[in-house]
């Protein structure tokens, strides 16, 4: 079952990051081409709103998949891609929010405020986006170094972001809940895959006294 161990020592080529960045930008490029060539359908605002939201969520789940995948495969080179994926997810989420405020609501701030206050799915989506801001800001190597242990604690917020984002999608769907439920399932798997490590870590802390019999 273990994937090829040889890949553990594989060195991704220098261009790997650039290729990954290009891939992450591809959905946006396709969206821009569709917009420029009038291929967004009868309700283009809804189309760009949905497509940016879909990609924000997909990239967020991809970000959350990096660590479990690395643990499972033992491929250390996966880790550097996590920041890129996370920042891409943030970029699409930000775009999604901007499209909602500018194109969908036409910058009618009363409408936006009323939406946030009265519609749970809007509030939940906005919260998810807001929680992503500190993560994006502290994603640099410098911030990572400066924050030390705090960095990891702060970045656990990404789990909350994932849960809120899936909830936002579920609550905004009118009828067909299949797609949001698939994302909910993937998110549940990704969170569960962390449980053993988290429990071990807790055990280490709780059992770190003199009576610790764990090896």
């Amino acid at each position: 079952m273990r994937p090829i161990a040889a890949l553990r020592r594989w060195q991704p080529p220098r261009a790997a990051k650039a290729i990954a960045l290009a891939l992450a930008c591809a959905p946006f490029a396709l969206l821009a081409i569709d917009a420029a060539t009038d291929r967004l359908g009868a309700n283009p605002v809804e189309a760009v709103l949905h497509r940016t939201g879909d990609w924000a969520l997909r990239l967020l789940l991809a970000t959350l998949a990096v660590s479990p995948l690395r643990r499972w495969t033992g491929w250390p080179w996966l880790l550097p891609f996590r920041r890129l994926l996370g920042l891409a997810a943030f970029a699409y989420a930000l775009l999604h929010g901007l499209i909602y405020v500018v194109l969908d609501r036409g910058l009618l701030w009363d409408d936006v405020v009323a939406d946030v206050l009265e519609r749970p799915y809007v509030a939940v989506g906005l919260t998810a986006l807001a929680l992503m801001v500190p993560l994006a800001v502290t994603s640099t190597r410098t911030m990572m170094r400066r924050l030390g242990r705090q960095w990891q604690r702060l970045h656990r917020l990404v789990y909350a972001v994932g849960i809120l984002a899936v909830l936002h999608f579920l609550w905004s769907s009118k009828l067909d809940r299949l797609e949001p439920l698939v994302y909910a399932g993937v998110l549940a798997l990704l969170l569960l895959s962390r449980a053993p490590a988290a429990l071990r870590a807790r055990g280490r802390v709780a059992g770190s006294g003199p009576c610790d019999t764990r090896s």
Partner: protein
Amino acid sequence: MRRIRIPSVPSSEITPRPVWEDRRRFLRAAAGGAAAALLARPGQAAVSRPGRLAPIADLQETAHGKDLKPTDYDDFTSYNNFVELGVSKEAPARNAHLLRTRPWTLKVEGECEAPGEIGIEDILTQFPQEERIYRLRCVETWAAVVPWVGVPLSLVLARFKPTSKAKFVELESISDPDRLPGQRRPVLPWPYVEGLRIDEAMHPLTLLATGCYGEVLPGQNGAPLRLVVPWKYGFKSAKSIVRIRFVEEMPETTWVRLQPDEYGFYANVNPKVDHPRWSQARERPIGEGLFARRRQTQMFNGYAEQVADLYRGMDLSRHY
């Protein structure tokens, strides 16, 4: 002296007033049509025919919505909610060919003296096919303007002689899980059921549509026979109807069964009563591009003058 005899005409030979008026209208329309063809005056042009499907024969133009600008045909026929043909907006157009529209029979039964059935061809030939341009407002906040062709529902229903016990009508849509991809999953409890109060069903604005844009209905828009109730959210206007039942009790309609707190039996367009998850104050006309603004939604979708009396004394925030 010979007495002048006033000829007595049997009543059966008297041309009914609507037909007589129609003849005049026909002559006027023919003359106007010839003139229009010569002059092609902009702003007065009839609804343009897309030339995709069979035209409706003997179509009669009416004054309904002459001031409205119809949505582009391609936009209206590519962005549809017709779950029987698939859940996305694009799927119904893609799967429309799976809908078999001939032969098609509408059964009418329940609390009426003359239950029976009528074929689509008879509906097309025995009733006037009126063109009426109506606003359409979806509960999801998008909107369109559609030149429907159809028969006032009251004309068809009258033929089956509803009794005084007929307080409501229940409309049932097609059931064909072997062919319709959306009916293979229990996304909705099938078949789709809608309903109207009898006075709503008999209201002169309520249309049993056979076409749009001068041609027969495309599958994705509810061919071959659908309801159009322009002052209610679109989901009330059931598509591909196979059965109408006169009933005494308020029918349990599909969306009410599914989510009674979000969708009501009346579903009148009302900018002041929000859907629990979104505001109904504004609407987005489809086919107007990425930068088109939403506009204010009108009470009863702009038909308040004609229909507000139907709901006098009712608390519309409770009977949503």
